[in-house]
């Protein structure tokens, strides 16, 4: 009983890495073009455009800018801003647009050059959270709040730095097999532990670094995709949950060890009619290793507080289900604000993930976090026969 009737028919990625001289616009357009080509459609049929504004160069009417550069005249366009939950929120928006008959083909696209941007020097940067009550204390965005949350988890449940290291090592192993990954040097647990504490309790390889890159998907009606005899990846369930916090003030979110992934996960799994045990591949949004650990608990792959022991039991080793972050994640492939997690899920379900392929992968869970665990989005994707 499919609740949604939409499917991902095209995926595209730009190059990722330190791409000095490539604008955020350029990376966005490269990804969009690749997704349109992968979908095998004429670009003129695209009647929905969903974009994510540039962090470094916030642009008025951003979605229209992207549509113009792609030569599109869509019926519906908007830019969406839910941080790392944006990509999945785009899938949800696209599903609604298709279900209501507003659109038939929706392009969802992301691109940033946060690593090498010239625009940052020109315009400064977007206001992040309650800066006046956070940054003046030397708190840095992203990793600092995760360090605060990890410390609390360690205190309550006995989680250790070594547990987090196992996540970093497992994801790097996959990234080494990914042709478009930024971090492809093998990582051992010893090497992880030799790195000094950067923001205690987190070390260098607990943290995802920003790179330049773009990624996009095209969403269409499942019925159309079936009629074209392509083998689409169906959106089985999708949901958001908001903890009632802005992306900061993080003082409240980092002191609870349960995230809104618990709510968005339960809603998306319920919509899809599947359980945690049915998930073959989990692509968990990872600003830090701790972010992965807490979601393993919140999605029900293990009990609350047992994430460390679950990882130490070998749960991330090859052959175990669910396989986790088989592209390397933000930590080791590229930080594309969650779009890369969706693309990897599609590759796994299509059976085109190369040496990273998980045999017989039929159902994938993909997550995104906006802010410091303030917003969570979850999508369940499934493989269907043509």
């Amino acid at each position, binding site marked *: 009983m499919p609740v949604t009737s939409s499917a991902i028919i095209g995926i595209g990625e730009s190059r990722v890495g330190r791409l000095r001289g490539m604008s955020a616009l350029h990376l966005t357009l490269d990804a969009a073009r690749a997704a349109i080509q992968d979908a095998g459609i004429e670009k003129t049929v695209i009647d929905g455009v969903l974009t994510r504004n540039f962090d470094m160069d916030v642009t008025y009417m951003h979605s229209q800018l992207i549509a113009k550069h792609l030569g599109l005249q869509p019926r519906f366009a908007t830019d969406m801003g839910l941080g790392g939950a944006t990509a999945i929120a785009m899938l949800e928006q696209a599903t609604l647009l298709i279900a209501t008959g507003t659109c038939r083909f929706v392009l969802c696209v992301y691109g940033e050059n946060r690593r090498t941007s010239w625009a940052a020097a020109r315009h400064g940067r977007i206001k992040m959270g309650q800066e*006046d009550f956070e940054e003046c*204390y030397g*708190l*840095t965005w992203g990793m*600092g709040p995760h360090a605060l949350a990890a410390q609390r988890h360690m205190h309550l449940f006995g989680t250790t730095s070594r547990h987090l290291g196992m996540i970093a090592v497992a994801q790097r192993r996959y990234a080494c097999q990914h042709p478009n990954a930024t971090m492809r040097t093998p990582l051992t647990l010893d090497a992880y532990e030799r790195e000094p504490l950067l*923001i205690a309790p987190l070390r260098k390889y607990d943290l995802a670094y920003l790179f330049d890159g773009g990624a996009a998907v095209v969403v269409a009606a499942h019925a159309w995709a079936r009629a074209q005899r392509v083998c689409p990846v169906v959106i089985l369930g999708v949901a958001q949950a908001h903890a009632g916090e802005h992306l900061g003030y993080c003082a409240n979110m980092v*002191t609870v060890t349960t995230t809104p992934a618990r709510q968005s996960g339960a809603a998306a799994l319920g919509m899809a009619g599947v359980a945690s045990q049915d998930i073959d591949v989990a692509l968990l949004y990872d600003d830090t290793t701790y972010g992965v650990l807490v979601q393993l608990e919140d999605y029900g792959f293990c009990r609350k507080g047992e994430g460390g022991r679950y990882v130490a039991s070998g749960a991330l080793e090859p052959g175990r289900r669910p396989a986790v972050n088989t592209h390397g994640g933000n930590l080791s492939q590229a930080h594309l604000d969650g779009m890369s997690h969706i693309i990897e899920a599609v590759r796994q379900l299509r059976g085109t993930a190369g040496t990273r392929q998980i045999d017989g992968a039929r159902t994938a869970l993909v997550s995104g976090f906006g802010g410091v665990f303030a917003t969570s989005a979850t999508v369940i994707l499934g493989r269907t026969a043509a």
Partner: protein
Amino acid sequence: MGSNAGVDMWKCHTTSKQQPLPDEDSQIFWEGCRRQRLLIQQCDTCQTFRFPPSPLCPACLSGVSTWRADPGAGEVLTFCVYHTEIAGPAWQPCLPYVVAVVRLWWSGVNMLSQLLCEDPQRVYIGLPVYIAFDVRPNGLILPRFLPLDAADAGELRPPNSELSQERGA
């Protein structure tokens, strides 16, 4: 990559320490700090305390509130220790420094701040702390925290504090 390569990517784009800029909603709070008083908003309608300052009570949407002076004693809910000047070069002389979330015992709100201590190794979750006002070059005064002497903490600590629970008090 070298051992610290890549860290600069998350750096804030400032050469000096970030300073708060009081705005319409926060100016009373910062004015309180200038007089070394920790003012926390309390809703007149439903009595809920809230921080940081905001125009409406998120619990009941009342726009009427009173600024109450919190005595500034509380305990560490969680903390992290910066060993890197990732927040900008101006932070280098301060390393290592401790960023902590403090639960204020009187108003019950959580405050993100810095914990001033000689040895970060001795910071722990549940550590009693009290407010210390720190004068910045631009005349603004930042509320920060110091470890609270155990004897003094006894009088101020409420019975349901994390520390008293953990020690079975």
